[in-house]
């Protein structure tokens, strides 16, 4: 009976999708926790400090060599942080607009995870007709879905800023609405050139194209640069962390938040970083493929190797995010808008036009012709 039930394609689809969702969610949550640790360690190292090096559960220090080494790396710090966030007092100020105040952290964190649904994080785990693609939702409008969801992310921040009903969060919310909407334009337009070359919106097909023809960063370096910088602005990372700007807005939109509600914003920021790293890897850096490993995997080990390649590329992009944060000072607000509207959008438009012209003139380059 179980056999017959499982041979039904609908049941199979539901079962595999559930497993994939759970695995991706678990892995991303772990990555978020450890991205915070990497952030703290890298920042410490860049500033000649030591970083978290003391948190240790009982008895770990008793393990010879490995125990003290792990503690020095701060491996247990994320667990302590998580515990702290859960146990802290969840304080809701009297003057906030309660419903929206409670809603905002959830709205901030959900889009970050929804974006991950269309990312092809591997080829497949086995060959044959029953092979499952390593993507949760293999949408034909993948990138449109992503942009739709990403633009929802701003609502969490704007709502948080507005519902907090105090000055600094309000300013942060206003800034974020302007900033994120402006850079979304540049980001969206930079990607158009990629689709002109590939001729498809499906992210899996974009990866296949790159596996066959070489990475997109070689064809579209300008688009990559625009996308990279816009991604910094979209994820509120320095040098574009206007909505947060600790030094002028006291934390901006999350000033009034505490405990787990604050942690959700924090989590959302890092999940966004992971999602946009994954998106960059998919669009520009060849996804799960390497120049000599372009074929979809025929075996379990090949599939796992592709997963590993994808994760490795994503981690490199994450480190770039973190590295840049500790290098550049924050832009002034008008400079940020100037860069977005007067530099990036014209540049992205020019890139689209040039790409289209080249595609029209050079016959046979890309699938679009």
């Amino acid at each position, binding site marked *: 009976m179980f056999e017959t039930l499982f041979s039904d394609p609908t049941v199979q689809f539901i079962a595999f999708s559930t497993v994939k969702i759970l695995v991706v969610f678990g892995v991303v949550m772990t990555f978020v926790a450890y991205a915070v640790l990497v952030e703290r360690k890298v920042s410490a190292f860049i*500033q*000649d400090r*030591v970083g978290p090096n003391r948190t240790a559960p009982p008895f770990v220090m008793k393990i010879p060599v490995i125990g003290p080494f792990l503690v020095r790396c701060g491996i247990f710090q994320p667990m302590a942080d998580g515990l702290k966030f859960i146990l802290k007092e969840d304080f809701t100020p009297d003057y906030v607009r309660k419903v929206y105040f409670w809603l905002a952290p959830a709205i901030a964190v959900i889009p970050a995870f929804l974006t991950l649904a269309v990312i092809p994080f591997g080829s497949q785990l086995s060959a044959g007709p029953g092979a499952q693609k390593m993507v949760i939702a293999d949408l034909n409008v993948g990138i449109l879905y992503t942009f739709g969801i990403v633009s929802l992310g701003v609502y969490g921040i704007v709502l948080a800023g507005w519902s907090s009903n105090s000055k600094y969060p309000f300013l942060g919310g206003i800034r974020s609405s302007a900033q994120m909407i402006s850079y979304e334009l540049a980001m969206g337009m930079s990607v158009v050139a990629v689709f002109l070359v590939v001729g498809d919106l499906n992210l899996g097909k974009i990866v296949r194209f790159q596996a066959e023809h070489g990475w997109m960063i070689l064809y579209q370096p300008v688009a990559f640069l625009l996308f990279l910088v816009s991604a910094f602005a979209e994820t509120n990372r320095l040098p574009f962390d206007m909505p947060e700007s600790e030094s002028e807005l006291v934390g901006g939109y999350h000033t009034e938040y505490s405990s787990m509600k604050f942690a959700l914003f924090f989590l959302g920021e890092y999940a966004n970083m992971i999602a946009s790293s994954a998106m960059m890897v998919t669009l520009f850096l060849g996804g799960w493929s390497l120049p000599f490993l372009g074929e979809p995997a025929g075996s379990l080990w090949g599939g796992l190797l592709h997963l590993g390649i994808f994760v490795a590329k994503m981690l490199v992009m994450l480190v770039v995010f973190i590295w840049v944060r500790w*290098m550049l000072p924050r832009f002034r607000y008008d400079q940020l808008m100037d860069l977005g509207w007067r530099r990036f959008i014209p540049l992205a438009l020019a890139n689209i036009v040039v790409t289209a012209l080249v595609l029209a003139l050079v016959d046979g380059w890309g699938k679009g012709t």
Partner: protein
Amino acid sequence: MTKVVDRKPLSFYERTYVPALWEGLKVTARHFKRSVQGHNTAKELGEGYYPEVPWRVSEGYRGAPYLVRDQDGHTKCVSCQLCEFVCPPKAIRITPPGPDGPPADRPNAEKMPREFEINMLRCIFCGLCQEVCPEEAIFLEDHYSLTGLTREEMVFDKERLLKLGGVHAGTQKWKNKLEEAAAQESFPVATH
């Protein structure tokens, strides 16, 4: 003579931010590499890390304000309450001795406070009390790590302040005043 800094207009390449970005990445990468190899500021100062090796403050640091005793171990404070008045966050509270209070333990002072409290949770370490004190009886010393488990615990009373403050023998404003006063009683006035 003012020095005129020559501000050359940036070239197009420089205005693209690319050279600045590249140099910045190089600087941060260099520090990162040094840290990975085991160098860091704490190690270079040769002292160790904070909780084990407390941070040594430099001279003139404004830590917690404490009451000091003079070279003979007497309370210097004369309960004039100037510090109480000047204190911006109103952290200091002085109970004067009143008409029938205990006499000052210093021979040439009229009174000393019955109680002297500083609420360290309110204190902003501005140093105005030290500046205003005519008797040089209160000093911001080098304690910076003030912790307690209750609010009551963080209100330091006179005993505790005097104990923490210790003897401040540096300023001996009244040291020779008694002899000088006694000498003025005799005639002709002895000159030193």
